[in-house]
Each structure stands twice: as structure tokens, then as C-alpha cells.
């Protein structure tokens, strides 16, 4: 039932003109769909995006799509260090040089174009910095820009970043958090209107794919920019199909109505995908880790210590009393590790030589509790001064994995005399209670970017904005400061590991799991590589060999 679309007259004229020009130049015109440049990748995605304008996006799905539309100045190579600039590859910036330790100058690639044909200029970069730094927008990564004093356009292709002080991850901060925006299209729009501005629903970008259409609650379609200055993408079209939830998204992939899904999450889903035969399983380092956070302060009076959890020995005993390796095995079927500190698998460089995970040792746990005066009372629950060793675990009702963990923790902690109650709440309620300190313990998950410097401090440092448990450990704070100021990757690694050892000695949380992500992608796609901090970062290099093209790949071509 596919209609053969007669080309409109202007298009026919344009084609004719192109043929004449090509003949005149003595070369053949590029076939819009030749060889391995015809593929269509349909991605099944749980949820629905809200905006594709990078500084106002909030969710991972929005980011996945807009990453294909908007480039950075430079991109971090997979697994490379965030210290210095040697791990980075040019994107919009063709080159860069350090004028001095506090001044970094980029030269833009003169071939870079916006999808409306305008050139990408240094003014766009300066404009972008101002937007990201504006607190009114609340852009992700804004706090990481605090040490950039100014961004100044020197000429149309030269832009200079001035830092308040030299520091090892200055280049990372200057490039990683910002996607360059079109000043000529957004400059006249007041930033207060960006959140809901129509540009966010039909953006004009500078990346390998250009925006085509957005069917509300259903799909977003992007098409390859055949003149993309860093090389034409192999896949001609990217389509995100939105599903109500993960099971519905998985169904689309299993039924061959979609080609890829970012994470399968649970072992049964992985088994289902493996069973189909048409899907290849792609494990890649996950950017998430989960932990049971202890609130060291009383939930009612935020100044008073928590009667049970303020005691570091009690926290240590609780950590020792849980067989976390078995839990990870049971829940993730070997696709998750117990992290020795607050670290996802994405930070592979930090796992090498990391301090060992405290062992599962109920004897030692009991000894610590006995020594602290927590004696076993009626019903097997320990008590001290009439107070039971009891607390609640807050867990989001939307996370099946974390709910499963809560039940298993309750069971294991019961064995050493801890009475744990489970509180299931929805995510907005959980976040509100965390921020207000109205919890005893909570199972949280944290998504990290490629460096610990962005997230570890806010979560666990004294006074950190996401340090909801009001934890304070000067030894840890000192090591974090040392890690942030280290100028060599090895020194930073050592300082982070010392910091995590300090956390293990006085745990603010029980680190539970760092899962490996597992994507399922149709086998007809070749050259598939996935990156932990953005699984589609290399999608423009994926391809479908001509002999494997399906009707969907060829539709409209």
C-alpha cells in the first residue's frame, strides 16, 4: 500500500539542476540511499520527551534525541580520562590551544553548519554559555560551569574560555556539559520562554541528524544530514517510538516493530530478547549505581542525631550483615557488581585497584552491635536503652528492582536483629521527603556522568546539595578535594580510591549494585558500538549492509 510519491516540481527541477551540475563537474550525483546508507533505526523508548532544546531537557530520552541534533565543541572518547584534553576528539571545534592555564581558545570547524544553512559561529558558543549558566533555565550541568568566568567570541570561528582558576577537568567542563545552540534563532527569545518554546519541539540543530517530525506521545523522526561536515551518517533515519512503559517498549522490539531498546533491565527480559533470534544482546557499562542511604539526623529534628543511624558502628554492622553479592546475583543474574564506593561501572578506570568491598560477615556485624550495647530482645529485635534497632526503608514504587532489594534487605537484616519496615512511595514524594530529610533510610539510584567530580561531591560531601542524610566525614572531604585538584589521572584515581576507603570506614550508605546495561538491537545492524554515558553516541557509524535492508529501511527511499 506504499504510495510512490511523485516528486514536486521544484524538487524535480533541483534534481535536474544537480544532474546538470554533476555532469558539468564530471562526477555522479550522490544517491540519497545507496550502499549501506539506507537503514532506518526504530528505537522503542519508554516515556515521552518534553523538549529537545538541550538546556531545558530533563530526561534521558530527551537527551538521547537532542544529542543527535546538537554537537559539543569536543567529545570525550570512550573510556578516556576527563583530566586534561588528550581524551577528547574534535566536534564543532576543529582545534584548541591553551593560552595559559586559565585561558582556552577553540577554533571552530569552518564547515560546521546549522540545519537551516547558517554557519556555526563563535557567537553561538558565547551565547550557549550564557544560556547554560542562567539559573532561570536550570540546565543540567550548570553547577559544573561555575569555574568558567567568561566565554568570548574573538572572531567568527575563534572563541576563548576564561577560567576562574586552573584545574584538571577544566577542558571537560568547557566541552562536555554544553551542546552548542543557534544564537540566530534563539537570541531574540526571552529565556523565561525557552522551556515551552516551539523551538524545543521542532529544533534546528548542527548534528549528524536533522529534525523531521514529532507526533505527540507517539514518535520523533530524524533524518541524516547528508552534508554533515564530519561525515554523512550511515543510517538514513532514526525514529523513536514512545511506549507507555518498559514492558510495552520491549513488546515492540520482540514483535519486530522496533529495532532497538536501550536497556532490558531484568534477566527475564534479556532471556526473552535472546530467545527471539533476531535480536543481538549488547552489554555496555552502566552509568547508574544504587545504594541504601542512611539518614544520620533525626527525621523530625534535623539538628538532632538519628537515635540509631547516627552511630557509625551500627551503619558498619548493617553493611556487613547483608550478602550484597548474592543479592546482585539474584536480582540481576550476574549483570551487576557490588561497588566498593559510590561508583557506576562507567568509571571503569576507578574500579581497577579499588578498595575491596567489605565482606559479608554477620559474626562481625553482631560483634559490633553487641559492643555498642545493642542486645537481642524479645522477638529477636536488638534493643539499646529500651530503643529497638528499627528503621524504615523508603523505596520508589515505580522501581521493581529496588522494591525487590528492599524485601531482600529486610529479610537479611532481620537475621542480625534489625526490624526494618518498607515504605513504598512514588518518585515525587520520595524526592520531596529526601530533600526535607523526612526519611530514615532510602534506596536511591544515581546516574553519573564520566567523572566522579560531578556527582560524588554533591551526594556525600559535607554540605553537598544532595547529601540528604546530612553525612559529614572530613577525611572523605579532604580526599575529594585532592582528587579534584589532581593533574594526573593516576593521582586522581588514587585520591578517589582513598576517598572511597574513607567512606567504607564510616559508611553514609550501603552500596548495593552497579548494573551493566544490556541493550537489544536487531541483528541486521552492523558496526554497533555503545557508550556508557550515551548509548547512541556513535549511532552515525552504525549501518545496515545492503543485502540486509528491510522494507522499513527502504520505505520512502
Amino acid at each position, binding site marked *: 500500500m506504499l504510495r510512490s510519491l511523485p516528486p514536486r516540481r521544484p524538487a524535480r527541477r533541483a534534481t535536474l539542476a544537480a544532474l546538470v551540475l554533476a555532469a558539468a563537474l564530471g562526477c555522479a550525483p550522490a544517491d540519497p540511499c545507496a550502499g549501506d546508507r539506507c537503514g532506518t533505526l526504530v528505537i522503542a523508548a519508554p516515556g515521552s520527551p518534553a523538549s529537545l532544546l538541550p538546556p531545558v531537557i530533563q530526561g534521558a530520552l530527551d537527551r538521547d534525541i537532542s544529542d543527535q541534533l546538537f554537537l559539543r565543541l569536543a567529545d570525550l572518547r570512550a573510556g578516556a580520562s576527563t583530566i586534561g584534553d588528550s581524551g577528547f576528539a574534535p566536534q564543532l571545534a576543529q582545534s584548541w590551544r591553551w593560552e595559559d592555564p586559565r585561558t582556552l581558545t577553540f577554533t571552530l570547524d569552518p564547515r560546521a553548519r546549522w540545519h537551516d544553512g547558517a554557519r556555526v559561529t563563535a557567537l553561538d558558543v558565547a551565547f550557549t554559555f550564557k544560556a547554560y549558566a542562567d539559573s532561570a533555565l536550570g540546565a*543540567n550541568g550548570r553547577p559544573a560551569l561555575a569555574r568558567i568566568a567568561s566565554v568570548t567570541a574573538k572572531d567568527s570561528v575563534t572563541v576563548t574560555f576564561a577560567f576562574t582558576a586552573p584545574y584538571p577537568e577544566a577542558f571537560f567542563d568547557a566541552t562536555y556539559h554544553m551542546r552548542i545552540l543557534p544564537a540566530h534563532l534563539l537570541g531574540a527569545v526571552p529565556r523565561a520562554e525557552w522551556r515551552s518554546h516551539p523551538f524545543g519541539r521542532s529544533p534546528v540543530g548542527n548534528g549528524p541528524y536533522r529534525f523531521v517530525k514529532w507526533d505527540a506521545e507517539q514518535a520523533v523522526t530524524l533524518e541524516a544530514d547528508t552534508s554533515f561536515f564530519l561525515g554523512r551518517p550511515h543510517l538514513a533515519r532514526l525514529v523513536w517510538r514512545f511506549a507507555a512503559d518498559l514492558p510495552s517498549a520491549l513488546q515492540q522490539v520482540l514483535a519486530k516493530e522496533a529495532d532497538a531498546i536501550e536497556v532490558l533491565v531484568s534477566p527475564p527480559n534479556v532471556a526473552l530478547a535472546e530467545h527471539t533470534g533476531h535480536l543481538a544482546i549488547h552489554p555496555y557499562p552502566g552509568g547508574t549505581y544504587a545504594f541504601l542511604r542512611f539518614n544520620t539526623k533525626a527525621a523530625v529534628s534535623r539538628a538532632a542525631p538519628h537515635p540509631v543511624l547516627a552511630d557509625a558502628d551500627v551503619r558498619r554492622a548493617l553493611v556487613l550483615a547483608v550478602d550484597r553479592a548474592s543479592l546482585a546475583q539474584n536480582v540481576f543474574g550476574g549483570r551487576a557488581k557490588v561497588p566498593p564506593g559510590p561508583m557506576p561501572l562507567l568509571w571503569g578506570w576507578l574500579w581497577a585497584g579499588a578498595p575491596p568491598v567489605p565482606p559479608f560477615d554477620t559474626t562481625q556485624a553482631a560483634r559490633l552491635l553487641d559492643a555498642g550495647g545493642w542486645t537481642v530482645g524479645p522477638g529477636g529485635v536488638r534493643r539499646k536503652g529500651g530503643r529497638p534497632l528499627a528503621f524504615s526503608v523508603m523505596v520508589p514504587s515505580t522501581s521493581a528492582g529496588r522494591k525487590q532489594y528492599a524485601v531482600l534487605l529486610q529479610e537479611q537484616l532481620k537475621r542480625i536483629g534489625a526490624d526494618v519496615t518498607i515504605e513504598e512511595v512514588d518518585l515525587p514524594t520520595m524526592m520531596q521527603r529526601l530533600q526535607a530529610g523526612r526519611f530514615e533510610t532510602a534506596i536511591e539510584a544515581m546516574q553519573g556522568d564520566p567523572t566522579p567530580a560531578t556527582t560524588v561531591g554533591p551526594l556525600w560531601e559535607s554540605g553537598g546539595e544532595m547529601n540528604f542524610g546530612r553525612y559529614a566525614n572530613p577525611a572523605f572531604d579532604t580526599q575529594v578535594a585532592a582528587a579534584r585538584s589532581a593533574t594526573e589521572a593516576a593521582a586522581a584515581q588514587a585520591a578517589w580510591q582513598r576517598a572511597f576507603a574513607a567512606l567504607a570506614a564510616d559508611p553514609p550508605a550501603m552500596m548495593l549494585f552497579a548494573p551493566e546495561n544490556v541493550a537489544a538491537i536487531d541483528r541486521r545492524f552492523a558496526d554497533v558500538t555503545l557508550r556508557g554515558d550515551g548509548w547512541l553516541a556513535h549511532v552515525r557509524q552504525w549501518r545496515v549492509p545492503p543485502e540486509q535492508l528491510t522494507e522499513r529501511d527502504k520505505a520512502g527511499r
Partner: protein
Amino acid sequence: MRRALRAAALLLAVATLAFAAIHAAPGAPFQPADGRALDPVAAAGLRARFALDAPLPVQYARWLAAAVQGDLGESFSRQRPVRDVLAAALPHSLLLAAAALLVDLLVGIALGAWQAAHAGSRGDRVLSAFTMSVQAVPVFWLGLVLVLVFAQWWHWLPVGGATDPVTHDLLTAAGRWLDRLRHLALPALTLGLAGAAGTARFVRGAMRDAWHEDHVRTARAMGVPERTILLRHVLRDAWLPLATLVGLAIPGLIGGAVLVETVFSWPGIGRVATDAILARDHPLVVGTALVSAAAVVLGGLVGDLLAAWADPRVRRSA
């Protein structure tokens, strides 16, 4: 006129209750879905922009003043006007509701009428057991079974969505309709069959009652064929209560098809409402509640029109 006033009062009451309920619910809006804490400065800016720090009566008065002019505010989670979000979702909900109602009535009346005509037979007993089973089965489970069989095993029908995002725009007009119908089939069947089971049981009972009416007995004594009695007299008598049932079913089909819309990723109002509640998206929650209330008004109107069409006495009294 009285009916319009009643409808306006209902909409106002529902909007007020929804406004109060979502503001009273624990949990703050603007929370990133990935569990990050929102930048406190940005959160304060958003609260100021949407005037969330003003006293609740003030917020309500502002919302009401804008709403009467057709402005339902901006969705926190969708980042666009509530009116636009509803306008995109409503046609899908209406289409699904209409298709499901069609399935419900066609299947339900046919089964119920056949059972009434063959009451006490083995077929009647089997169908009674079947309709009771369908009623007992959760609607999402029925949907999942249909997906498994028709989409995953046999690949006859798509698993979800309202259209094919790759090929739909490339199809001819007829092809686009066919594409829509293919995507509509499973959700409409799921929702319609769940309703049809109840309708069949209702029709059977109503027709059995009508079977013993004086005018039916008279017709039979006059030698009117059974088929004519069934269609002209018994079914017509049963139609009046059925019309009321249809009116009552409409709101549930438009605003309450949450589970079916979730299973089939159908982009309707139910899914939008669920997402809005989970995101504490105050304006969108109130907007979807208004749509549901409007569906109740519409359902009542449709029910009354059908009853009037079926029974001249109702027409005269109206």
C-alpha cells in the same frame, strides 16, 4: 438551558476537586525522572514562574480566570500548553472509545439476544460462563493475551501505537486508514470485549424480562413469527435501559481506558492523565479531569438521545 447549567456546575466542581486534590498530594512537581535533585535555584525559579508559592485560593482564582478564557495553563511535565496536550490526545481517545463502544454493542447485543432467545440451552449456559469469565479477567490481562497471540506470535496486528511512525505518511489515503484500523484493532477489541461481556449479560436479562410482557404474549398469540417478536418487541423493550448503560459507559471509555492505553501505548487521555499524576503536573491533572467530566456530560446526553430515539414517551416528556 438547565442542562447546560448543570453541565457547567459539574465541570466547575470536578475542576475544583481535582485542583485541591493534586495540590494536597505529597510530592513536588518538576522532579527529574532520573532521581536527580533539581537545581534549587532553578526549582525556585520554576515555582515563581508558575506562582506555586502563592496561597492556594489565589492560585485557584488565577487558574479559573484563565480557564474561562480557554487557557488551561502550561503543563509542567510536557512543557507546552495543557490545551495542546489535550488536543493531541483527545482525538485518539474518542476514536478508541467509539471503536470500543461499537465492539461492545455489536458483540454484547448479539450474544445477549441469542442467549435470551435460547435461554436455558447448553449454548446459553456456555455463553454465560464465557461472558462471566471475560468480565472476571482484568482488562490489561486480556490485552496482553491479545498482543501475545495477534502481534507477537502471528504478526497480524501491531503491538501498539496509533500509527506506524515510519510508513504512515508514505501511504495512500486508503492505506493510512487501514494503518489506523490495524493499530486500533487490538485496543478496541480489548476494551470492547470487556464491555461486551457485561452488555451481553445485561441484554439477556432485559430481554428475558421483556419476553413475559403482555404485548409480547399478545403478539405471539396473534401468530407473529418469533424472529419478528424478538427484533421488533423484545429487543426494543430492552433497548431503553441499554441506552442508559451506553451513556454510563462513555466516560469510562474516554477517560478511564488507562490500562488499555498503557498496554497498547495508545496516545490517549488516560495515559496523559496517569503521567500527569505521577509527575505532579497540576495543570495537566486538572485538564484531564475536565475532559473526563465533559465525557460524563456527553455520555448523559448520548444516553438521553438514544432513549428518546428508542421510546417516544421519553421524547414527549423531554
